[in-house]
């Protein structure tokens, strides 16, 4: 079903835990690839965010780290975990990779747990023993763990279940955690608890954490680096601080303008249009139709990641045109008095 075009070789010199390079994923019946030339890396102990609207390919990218692809899909490129090519794994080796190296924390804990089985069974199935299951539940801050292991999912609240799912992800002592909207469904206090818990676990065990969210502000505040995805592509990859202060891609700027802040100087600017579906195809940049700075060349320019002076990348033709005008982009972070010039990159 999936084929690795690049053969297994030695680990890349970066020392990354997870290294996805040029991953393209096609499914039959879709007009465009699900993922298009996605490159992404997570180092041990690093928290990396993956941000984008629904359907941008965030979850698909994360699941690729598990060797989990949609049925019938063909993958090209490479997904390396600690030097091992995941795309080439099959059968027992793939199962062992999923069971030991990488763990996924699901978006909806109630759906991720079998309703008819006990919480303890869920943990034991993922590598815990009966006694370590109780310790695991205690370690993720679940009160009364001895009782919880005998309970069934419908007897627990959403926040409790999210902790159970995290405990399940930790049961096998993985080296990389994939948190797929792990806190999106929770109320803020529980969300803060879970985020602190994940951060603590990362520090304690040296885990790599790939944090998938649609909340760019949360990503910037919580993570070391951020990848922004749009229509199956990585459109911008920056350190969290740089992304928040000097977003380079119009889509990232659009996402930041969508979120309300207390700062009254920055009115809300929803991105016009809607995210592209799998039936939409593009001759040039996929964001052109929704971009307020689109140029005629955007229609035909095939997006390529352009290296920025601070080490990040952005896939926008405007970035090439401006080159290293980092100072100009800084203008975005400090809104002008008249509020019209919001972006130094294209307003010369």
């Amino acid at each position: 079903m999936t084929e690795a075009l690049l053969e297994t070789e030695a680990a890349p010199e970066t020392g990354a835990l997870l290294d996805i390079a040029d991953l393209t994923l096609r499914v039959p019946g879709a007009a465009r690839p699900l993922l298009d030339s996605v490159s992404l890396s997570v180092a041990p102990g690093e928290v990396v965010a993956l941000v984008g609207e629904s359907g941008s390919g965030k979850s698909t990218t994360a699941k690729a780290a598990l060797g989990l692809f949609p049925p019938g899909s063909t993958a090209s490129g490479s997904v390396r975990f600690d030097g091992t090519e995941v795309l080439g794994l099959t059968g027992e080796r793939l199962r062992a990779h999923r069971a030991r190296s990488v763990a996924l924390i699901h978006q909806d804990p109630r759906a991720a747990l079998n309703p008819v089985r006990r919480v303890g069974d869920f943990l034991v199935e993922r590598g815990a023993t009966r006694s370590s299951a109780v310790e695991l539940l205690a370690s993720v801050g679940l009160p009364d763990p001895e009782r919880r292991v005998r309970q069934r999912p419908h007897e627990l609240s959403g926040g409790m279940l999210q902790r159970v799912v995290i405990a399940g992800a930790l049961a096998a002592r993985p080296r990389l955690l994939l948190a797929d909207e792990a806190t999106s469904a929770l109320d803020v206090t529980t969300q803060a608890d879970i985020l602190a818990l994940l951060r603590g676990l990362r520090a304690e065990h040296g885990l790599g954490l790939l944090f998938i969210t649609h909340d760019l502000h949360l990503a910037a505040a919580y993570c070391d680096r951020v990848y922004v995805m749009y229509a199956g592509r990585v459109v911008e990859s920056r350190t969290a601080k740089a992304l928040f202060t000097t977003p380079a891609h119009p889509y990232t700027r659009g996402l930041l303008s969508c979120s309300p802040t207390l700062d009254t100087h920055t009115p809300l600017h929803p991105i016009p249009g809607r995210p592209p579906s799998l039936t939409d195809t593009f001759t040039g940049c996929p964001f052109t139709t929704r971009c307020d700075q689109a140029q005629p060349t955007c229609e035909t320019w095939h997006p390529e990641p352009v290296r920025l002076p601070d080490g990040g990348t952005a896939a926008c033709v405007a970035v090439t045109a401006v080159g290293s005008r980092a100072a100009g982009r800084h203008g975005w972070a400090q809104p002008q008095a008249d509020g019209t010039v919001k972006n130094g990159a294209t307003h010369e």
Partner: protein
Amino acid sequence: MPLRLLRRLTGVLATLLAASFVIFAAVYAAPGDPAVFLAGGRDKLTPERLAQVRAEYHLDEPLFVQYGRWLWDCLHLDLGRSFKYSDQVADLVAARFPTTLQLVLYATVLFVVLGVGAGVLAAVKRSTWVDSAVVGATTLAASVPSFVAAIALVSLFGVRLGWFPVTGGGSGFLDTVRHLTLPALSLALGALAIVSRVTRQAMADAAASDHVEAARASGVPERDIVRRHVLRNALGPIVTMCGLVMAGMLAGTVVVETAFGLSGIGSLLVGAINTHDFPVAQAVLLLMVTGYIVVTTLVDAVHPLLDPRVKGAAG
């Protein structure tokens, strides 16, 4: 909990009461006059003799009075006497019922093991030639009438190979099993298609759940996923369907009993209907309905064990 039990019990009793009236009225409305039969045939029949017989057996009273009398007797565990054999109906039924019960239980074991097994196989090997073969074979088995299957089984395993006896009920456990194998098999064949199809579909639905994908993403072995997540969660529809099919079999043994010369309640019922033996026919039908209700009630009672959420919802 006691309230729910009481409610369920009341429901069962109400169903039984309604069923008993329908049974009584249906047998009463059947063509032919039992009094003619009781008087010993039409030849030397006089109106006076007919009236005398009617009065003797209370056949001259209105339907509701007869029903009330019968129900009252039933509640006192008196099912009456057979018109034909003059024996106690209870004794007649008690002598015939074990054979039918054994036959149905044996057939149930067969169709549960083979049907669920085939369904699991088809679900695991979905969209492969195994899946098509299971669906095709079970459909073929279901489309063959049970008396044809009985004849085929008898000629192959009974006559040609000589593995199993072709008639009679046998005595002792092993001998009974040997005697009932072919009848139970021909009874179970028709159920295989339903049970395997329901199993396959229920497992396909369960396999589409998010928690199955989550388990797979966590590297849970495929064998455990099929057993503990897919089959375990599909048990609800499977158990319901097996219960219904088994309950239906209680009333459908007559063809197989006749084909294999077994004296069960199926052949008793047909004989009773042909000879206008009201008390026997009513008692056998009532027993069949009771069996059906008992089985379906048991299936209902098992559901909270299969899905703990059911218990919570019924509260």
